[in-house]
């Protein structure tokens, strides 16, 4: 569904430097690929680059991006616009910032529908055409809202973070998208909302057969959602593969460090020894957190 090959991104501000180097990975249809790494490793920029949404200061200097067989890196603005929301959609970390605070949810739906094959004529939110209203309601019901009309009439500030994220997914589902990009969609949500949104994404993927690229820094999200994992560090892909293989036998030291940190949160470590939750002595956790020598570039400041 999505194929990224040798992507290179450069920052233009100050001394030009490459922030993403030689990044290649793919997202098969109906599967979830997780792009994982720490803040600043370039995973969000990679995600934005796919839909041509890079900020002004960043430029793509190399590589190709293919969505559903179609090369998208050099599309005209009109084509890109049709692509976004039409074939591919994106949900972001902070849902509140994606909504216009003075417009109701209904107006947001109207806008999305107008951009992608709804009835664009009337732009007044009170006079939404019946067919569009039905589509909006269907979308909202699919993401789990029992009373879509209440949601449609609400303003973004009246909804919680989790609810807004659901509305984002509903907006994405208005068209028959083939690819869903999610940039840290649950980072700002609490643990229960996170679980619900991830389940929603999983179910939606299964029902619609779309490919999902999920960007995250949380290995737990990877364990829950991923079929494939791409590990990024300082702008490069250090390891990628099927999730089971990665967890069982990580090859790169950075991946190992990430996994060990993740497992230590559960009181586990490699080799399946349950250290036990709530141990009094910190030593086992400390020792488990740093297995063997860590290469220079992975050592923390």
């Amino acid at each position, binding site marked *: 569904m999505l194929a990224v090959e040798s992507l290179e991104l450069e920052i233009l*501000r100050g001394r030009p430097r490459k922030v993403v180097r030689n990044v290649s990975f793919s997202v098969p249809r109906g599967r979830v690929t997780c792009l994982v790494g720490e*803040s*600043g490793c370039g995973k*969000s*920029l990679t995600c*934005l680059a796919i839909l041509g949404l*890079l*900020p*002004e*200061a*960043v430029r793509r200097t190399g590589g190709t991006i293919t969505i559903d067989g179609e090369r998208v890196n050099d599309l005209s603005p009109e084509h890109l616009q049709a692509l976004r929301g039409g074939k591919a959609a994106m949900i972001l970390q902070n849902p509140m910032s994606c909504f216009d605070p003075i417009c109701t949810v209904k107006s947001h739906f109207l806008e999305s529908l107008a951009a992608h094959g709804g009835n664009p004529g009337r732009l007044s939110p009170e006079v939404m055409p019946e067919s569009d209203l039905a589509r909006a309601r269907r979308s909202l019901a699919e993401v789990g809202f029992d009373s879509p009309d209440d949601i449609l009439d609400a303003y973004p500030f009246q909804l919680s973070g989790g609810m807004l994220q659901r509305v984002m997914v509903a907006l994405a589902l208005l068209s028959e998208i083939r690819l869903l990009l999610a940039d840290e969609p649950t980072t700002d949500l609490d643990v229960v909302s996170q679980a619900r949104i991830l389940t929603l994404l999983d179910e939606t993927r299964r029902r619609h057969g779309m490919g999902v690229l999920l960007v995250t820094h949380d290995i737990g999200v990877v364990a829950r959602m991923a079929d494939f994992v791409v590990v990024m560090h300082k702008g490069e892909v250090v390891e990628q593969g099927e999730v089971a293989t990665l967890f069982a036998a990580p090859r790169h030291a950075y991946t190992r460090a990430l996994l060990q940190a993740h497992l230590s949160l559960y009181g586990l470590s490699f080799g399946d020894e349950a250290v036990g939750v709530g141990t009094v002595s910190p030593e086992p956790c400390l020792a488990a957190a740093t297995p063997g020598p860590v290469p220079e570039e992975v050592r923390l400041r």
Partner: protein
Amino acid sequence: MTLLRTLLSGRTTRLAFVAACAVLLVALFAPLLSSWDPDDIDLSQKLQAPSREHLLGTDHLGRDVLARLLHGARASLGSVAVIVAAILLLSLSVGSVAGYAGGMVDAFLMRLCDTFLTFPTFILAMFLIGILGAGMTNVILAIVCTHWAWYARIIRGLVLSLKTREHVLAARVAGTGQFRLVMRHILPGVLPQILVLATLDIGHMMLHVSGLSFLGLGVQPPTAEWGVMINDARQYIWTQPQLLFYPGLAIFVTVMAFNLLGDGLRDALDPVGETGGWGK
């Protein structure tokens, strides 16, 4: 300082900054820049054309126009400086107390502001001058009275929003007292925006000062001031239009310079600016 650098990076802002500095320097060093006394009446020299002695000619009373222009800068800018200082002092005190204290204090102070906001500047000026007499002091008083409340409201709003910021809470937990909280944690967040507003307002206040002086309510003759010069030149508008032109140009340049400078300051202080929040 990086702020200065950002400020001077735009061409218009650079020009505005230079112009504003020039006007300020003129106001400061006026006596040194002109050998003529602006109040020196010499009727034998009246309405002279520009010459080597009088670079811009003389006015209807034989006074050197250039000298009056330079000294006029002092009166105009000097009074504006006093006005801005007084407004800032008053509005910062009232605004931060209202914003920080909240409750009844806030309500009372805001009603006070509302009262002052209802007075139009010229009407109040005329009222005050009617009671207290003409003169620069009363003009300054009138302008301060009508403008401070607007600033106070804005400052109150800024203080309210900064009060709940986590670094203020953290400072409270660290034991910082209220006065230090306001001075070190809240006001430094308020000042940049207020300074921008004040800079943008300098032109507006200059026009008030000059306008009131033009009406004869402010600076009294023979003191040189741009508004007064325009008033004096009214009768010669057909014969000696340049007498009107020079002070008008001076006002125009000064107001423009400070407006553009204020714009530049606002852009320079805008934190969102370039990054737009793309990375962490």
